[in-house]
């Protein structure tokens, strides 16, 4: 066995896994603050990348300006989703809300297809293609940047959920009715969680868009995001980070060895297998809250 190749696959897998964590983090943020599993996170990620391009194109703005502007726009879109699509559903069965997020996913993908078509557009961040050397290992620079962004966001949200506002959001996720009963504005909390998640989606959309171009396939990051979020426990930001690393390593090494045997295309199979196994073996993931049953 070639240990250098293995290590290189593992390290690059960990880095790209952290970039999956960015997508997963958006899912976790919403779940942790309102117990809604958001199936539209992949579509929002893609939408944000298109919005960055649209702002850069329309205002002739440089990317360093277009990205924060797009984050502001996505913040507003997140708030709008709560207001238009979710407010009436608060307190309704979770299946209806889940279907609504699926509807949002389809809507966003169809809308971007209509507006911007299907051809891939480049989103150059100016990150050099030249690999970074770590001893004998070659690292992908874009992945390194993405991994660092993921870690910074993790630190931000780790502290956020210990602030007063963060605690209120966790309370909402626990019990909507009890939150209303003590005067918490559940609607505003849910809106904030969608807005934050949409901003995180922008970070993920830009980084992934710069790597693989901006087209409909960006929305398929949902699969990786869901797999990482479920493995990490749905409501744990730290879990999303560790699960991202784990999933990235397994995906990259397993497919690195499987692909030559089966002729390629085993990446998604590995991810899907992890998703299914997690749900079967440990439904609350590595670090998720367990439902408390007192007797």
């Amino acid at each position, binding site marked *: 066995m070639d240990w250098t190749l293995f290590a290189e696959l593992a390290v690059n897998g960990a880095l790209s896994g952290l970039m999956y964590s960015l997508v997963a983090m958006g899912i976790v943020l919403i779940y942790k603050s309102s117990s809604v599993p958001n199936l539209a996170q992949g579509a929002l990620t893609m939408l944000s990348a298109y919005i960055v391009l649209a702002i850069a194109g329309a205002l002739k703005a440089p990317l360093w300006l277009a990205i924060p502007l797009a984050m502001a726009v996505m913040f507003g879109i997140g708030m709008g989703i709560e207001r238009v699509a979710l407010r009436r559903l608060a307190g309704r069965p979770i299946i209806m809300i889940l279907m609504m997020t699926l509807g949002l996913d389809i809507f966003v993908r169809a809308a971007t297809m209509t507006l911007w078509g299907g051809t891939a557009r480049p989103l150059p961040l100016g990150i050099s293609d030249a690999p970074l050397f770590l001893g004998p290992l070659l690292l992908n620079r874009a992945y390194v940047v993405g991994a660092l962004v993921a870690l910074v966001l993790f630190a931000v949200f780790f502290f956020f959920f210990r602030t007063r506002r963060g605690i209120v959001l966790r309370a909402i996720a626990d019990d909507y009715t009890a939150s209303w009963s003590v005067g*918490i504005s559940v609607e505003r909390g849910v809106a904030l969680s969608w807005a934050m998640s949409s901003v995180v989606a922008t970070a993920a959309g830009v980084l992934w868009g710069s790597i693989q171009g901006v087209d409909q396939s960006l929305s398929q990051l949902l699969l990786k995001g869901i797999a990482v979020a479920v493995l990490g426990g749905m409501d744990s930001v730290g879990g999303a980070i560790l699960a991202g690393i784990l999933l990235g390593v397994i995906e990259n090494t397993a497919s690195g060895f499987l692909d030559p045997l089966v002729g390629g295309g085993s990446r998604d199979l590995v991810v899907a297998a992890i998703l299914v196994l997690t749900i079967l073996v440990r439904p609350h993931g590595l670090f998720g809250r367990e439902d408390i049953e007192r007797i």
Partner: protein
Amino acid sequence: MSDAAPSLLSINNVEVIYDHVSLAIKGVSIEVPRGGMVGLLGANGAGKSTLLKSVSGLLKTERGEVTRGEVRFDGRNIDALTPQERVELGIVHVLEGRRVFEHLTPDENLVAASAVRGGRADMLRNRERVYGYFPRLHERRTAQAGYLSGGEQQMLAIGRALMTQPRLLMLDEPSLGLAPFLVAEIFEIIRRINREEQLSVLLVEQNAIAALEVVSHGYLIENGRIVMHDSSEAMKKNPDIQEFYLGGGAARDFHGIKHYRRRKRWLT
């Protein structure tokens, strides 16, 4: 009546319908005086919780609606207000079954409930006040609330409500599933808060024995109607109450049940 010296809370002839069809309470009127402690007694399904929700505004989350009558708080009609606005006015509802934020610690439960009031210093002072009333919660302040005992959870639910600095505390079956000595302890604390802070209390209970010990007045609700309203002393002496809610008197036989039905019609 409510113009001259308005009660803190007056519910006037309120009717509540769920899902546009199911009539849950039928023209109920209740007054809670300022600083008073009033009990609302009745069996399962009599409409007690529904009445509290019509005051706290939580009806709409269950597709219920006040279709007649009005709820006045401090002389003002509050029917159009959101639950949050009602908490800001000073109404707080401790839900049946405790409903603490299970994955948060007691500390965090109290912080979460302080969202409507004041800055950080207020919140901390307020939290110390709550821990003053419930020292046992203070001991377990960093445990996960879902793993507290039933009594501790009930204390936490009440403490959480106190964090909103209410003027009216509405408690829905705080004795549910608790040992009698704990019920006595919790009711005693509620009475103390009522006395020391002039906090008005509306206590909803099936446990009439315990409730009539602490309230000054009681209402009895049956099938969505108020069938009796009197001082707690008089209610304790009432033969119907003794027989059917205090568990005293003769054993339940056919004759008793018929008699009870007749009495109920007469009272209505």
